């Protein structure tokens, strides 16, 4: 029983939403789902946030190694929570938007959250280089194609590519690296993207059907009966 009802729910909800596409009066049900989901996510956060506090609290009280950092995490979490819940320093008081300029919440966002996020994102500049250095090697046919495509596109985006192949006569201008780069992006690249996208669509159809029909049910956990 404890397992059959969830399976039934999945089946009914899934098939109804698939069919709703074909019935204009039911068209908006998908959007209603997103509202349900947003509200469920709030309650789920009680579990997630609770887990965060519990893990770091445990580290702190058992004085595990690096417990000092747990203090920092907890402090950050609660400071942000209080600043946001009570809209501390908000120029418009409780009536204002929580992210209003000048509020403590927004200041924390600008001084701490934003630079940290942007810096983490920026690490990609370095990783993209180290990955190119390591991965683009002519180990076999596949890797060589990967390498050549990447190399042509990279060259095509610098003046270097233009100078290197400027001698090619205009009747073969497609072979000039900048043109070749554009051609790769618009032609073979499109073919590959299309194959991937169509494949994904069919994979999703098949997996969704497995879920809706209850063939795939690992996520449902244990039947304690």
């Amino acid at each position, binding site marked *: 029983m404890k397992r059959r009802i969830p399976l039934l729910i999945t089946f009914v909800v899934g098939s109804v939403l698939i069919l709703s596409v074909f019935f204009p009066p039911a068209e908006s049900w998908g959007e209603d789902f997103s509202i349900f989901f947003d*509200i469920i996510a709030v309650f789920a956060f009680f579990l997630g946030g609770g887990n965060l506090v519990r893990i770091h609290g445990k580290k702190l009280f058992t004085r595990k190694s690096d417990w000092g950092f747990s203090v920092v995490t907890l402090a950050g979490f609660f400071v942000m929570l209080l600043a946001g819940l009570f809209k501390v320093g908000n120029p418009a008081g409780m009536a204002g938007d929580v992210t209003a300029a000048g509020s403590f919440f927004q200041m924390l966002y600008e001084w701490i959250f934003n630079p940290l996020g942007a810096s983490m994102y*920026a690490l990609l500049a370095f990783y993209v280089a180290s990955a190119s250095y390591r991965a683009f090697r002519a180990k076999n046919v596949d890797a060589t194609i990967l390498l050549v495509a990447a190399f*042509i596109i990279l060259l095509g985006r610098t003046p270097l590519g233009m100078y290197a192949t400027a001698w090619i006569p205009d009747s073969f201008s497609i072979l000039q690296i900048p043109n070749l780069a554009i051609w790769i992006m618009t032609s073979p*690249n499109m073919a590959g993207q299309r194959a991937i996208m169509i494949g994904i669509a069919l994979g999703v159809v098949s997996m*969704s059907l497995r879920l809706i029909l209850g063939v795939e049910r690992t996520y449902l956990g244990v039947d304690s009966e």
Partner: protein
Amino acid sequence: MGFWEIFGVWLAALLTLGIISFLYRDNAFYKACEAIFVGISAGYWAITYFWDNLYRKFYLQVSDPAGTEKYVPWIGFVLGILMLTRLFKKIGWLSRWPLAFIIGATAGLYMMTYFVSNAMVQISASILPVFEGSFGDIITNLLVSGGTFCGLVYFFFSKEHKGVFGGAARVGIWVLMLTFGASFGYTVMSRMSLMLGRLDFLFGDWLKLIK
């Protein structure tokens, strides 16, 4: 600049340096930044959930006297409460209901979205006359249609990749590799500009070495 602005710039600069130091190796400075980031951002999302979802999408909707369809947020609310039954051993199994609901709905919704926008649209976009335009265009058209076809052959699961079929699958893999190489190379430049933003902040806004 007032004290608080200078303080904010310094704080942001130190945090930026802390994150960048991870490139060398893990260190206490990075750990501190990580701890701050996790705490602050979890708090940020908690607040977003509270004001955006619970307050705006639930409370304001159900308390709006003019609102129609008030029952919609309530269904979400009940499912959310069921989610919390996990905290109690005896009725914890009830939390699978909202989960089953979410998975069913996601499966149903995505199935149609993907089928329309990824499969149908792409197939209809592929149906084009091949022998059109210049010689180069014809080659390109053939390549795009053939490439898509071979790419799909590669994804076939229930047939062994042998003989002609295997050859097509092989070409399919090459097309995919070409695609990946091209997209990778294409993104390098914009990834570089991300770091430029941070360097500009560090050496301009903070150290004032750049105009």
